[in-house]
């Protein structure tokens, strides 16, 4: 099948590449742009490890063709750090609260949490769990992921973080 050209902005950088129409966005990002942060964990769009932020939406990049994302503004985990190079509050929170173990779900989880906090800057625990229900984790049992997101929410709002008592 003849290739077509796509251009999009990825982590603030303009890119132009040739793709087959059937090239999945996740493969485009990982193989052509060498952004290996987003991962592939399933083949039925359930696990969320491939989540990126596309035009202000959390999207499973394994279920989008690169051609559909033509002209889009995309952010992956590689684009999450602050402008001055320091870690985003979420990246910091995941480390502080032990919100990761093998690290495979982490990029998708952080990018999803980012959009969630943009839309709801002070979520309850229930809202957080519902908000990450499209991201599976096999290692952590989610409890410390919730804490990591709460940590980040507090930091982004400029309030002190109070870790919930057990």
């Amino acid at each position, binding site marked *: 099948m003849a290739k077509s050209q796509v251009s999009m902005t990825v982590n603030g950088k303009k890119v132009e590449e040739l793709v087959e*129409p*059937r090239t*999945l966005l996740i493969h485009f990002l990982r193989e052509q742009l060498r952004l290996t942060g987003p991962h592939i964990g399933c083949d039925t*769009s359930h696990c969320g490890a491939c989540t990126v932020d596309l035009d202000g*939406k*959390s999207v499973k990049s394994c*279920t989008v063709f690169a051609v*559909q994302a033509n002209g889009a503004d995309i952010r992956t985990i590689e684009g999450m750090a602050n402008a001055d190079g320091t870690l985003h509050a979420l990246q910091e929170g995941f480390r502080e609260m032990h919100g990761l173990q093998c690290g495979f779900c982490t990029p998708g989880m952080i990018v*999803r949490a980012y959009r969630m906090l943009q839309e709801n800057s002070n979520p309850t625990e229930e809202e957080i769990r*519902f908000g990450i229900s499209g991201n599976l984790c096999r290692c952590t049992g989610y409890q410390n992921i919730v804490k990591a997101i709460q940590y980040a929410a507090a930091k982004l709002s400029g309030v002190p973080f109070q870790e919930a008592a057990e």
Partner: protein
Amino acid sequence: MIPGAFAYHRPSSVKEAVGLLSQFGDDARAIAGGHSLIPMMKLRLAAPGHLVDLAGVADLKGIREDSRDIVIGATTTQHELIGSDLLAKKIPILRETSLLIADPQVRYVGTLGGNVANGDPGNDMPAVMMCLNATYHAVGKSGERRIAAREFYQGAYFTALEPGEIVTAIRIPVPAAGHGHAYEKLKRKIGDYATAAAAVVLTMSGGKVASCSIGLTNVAETPLWAEEAARILTGSTLDAASVKKAVAAAEAITSPASDARGPATYRTKMAGVMLARALANAKARAGA
């Protein structure tokens, strides 16, 4: 994991989209959010040679009031439905149902048109549309027509759409102010298709049911409009005996698949349980 090859088209008008679908016939599929079609293509259960992407057709967007109806563009996403103050106020069952579909990522991208038009018995919106007596605007080679949701579903993945036709909008008559609503969905886990689900919209008057409409999800090859069950309840106080009769009438029209969600007998029973709970919730939300 890897779909077959196809040619990609991105029309900017309904006319152009319909033209492409007619041109390529059976070998073409329309794609909106793609979160039903693309997973099927990745498993190679669907292998269209042409994809017609509706994302660039501006006319398919928007939520507007039109006299006593609300008209929702077919490529309105679940996320947009959830965020619509107009819908939250006028047709709250839509938001309730939308939040029970899939997960946040899918809801950002999945469309109402996709959910109602592809004939997947597992989708949640079709039963709700039947319950609300919605009408689908469809445009094809021969122009525009309107199809009642209650007449739209003919079999699993088999609808009243002609080849080359697409649903462009969904028209819903606004339920009476003070109506009660509920969408009760039993599922194995969040985001799953329904083991069984029931949509109820009703109005009460003087403690009695003045009007009642019931839809059932994923307990047959198509969504079901439980007309007889609703008729039984109309005029009742939703007393235990009437509810029991209505539940029996609803169970009687189900023919669910046996799958990992449970055997058919269980799913039929769950349709009844979901209906009973939806009725109780709808009543609680209704004005007197």
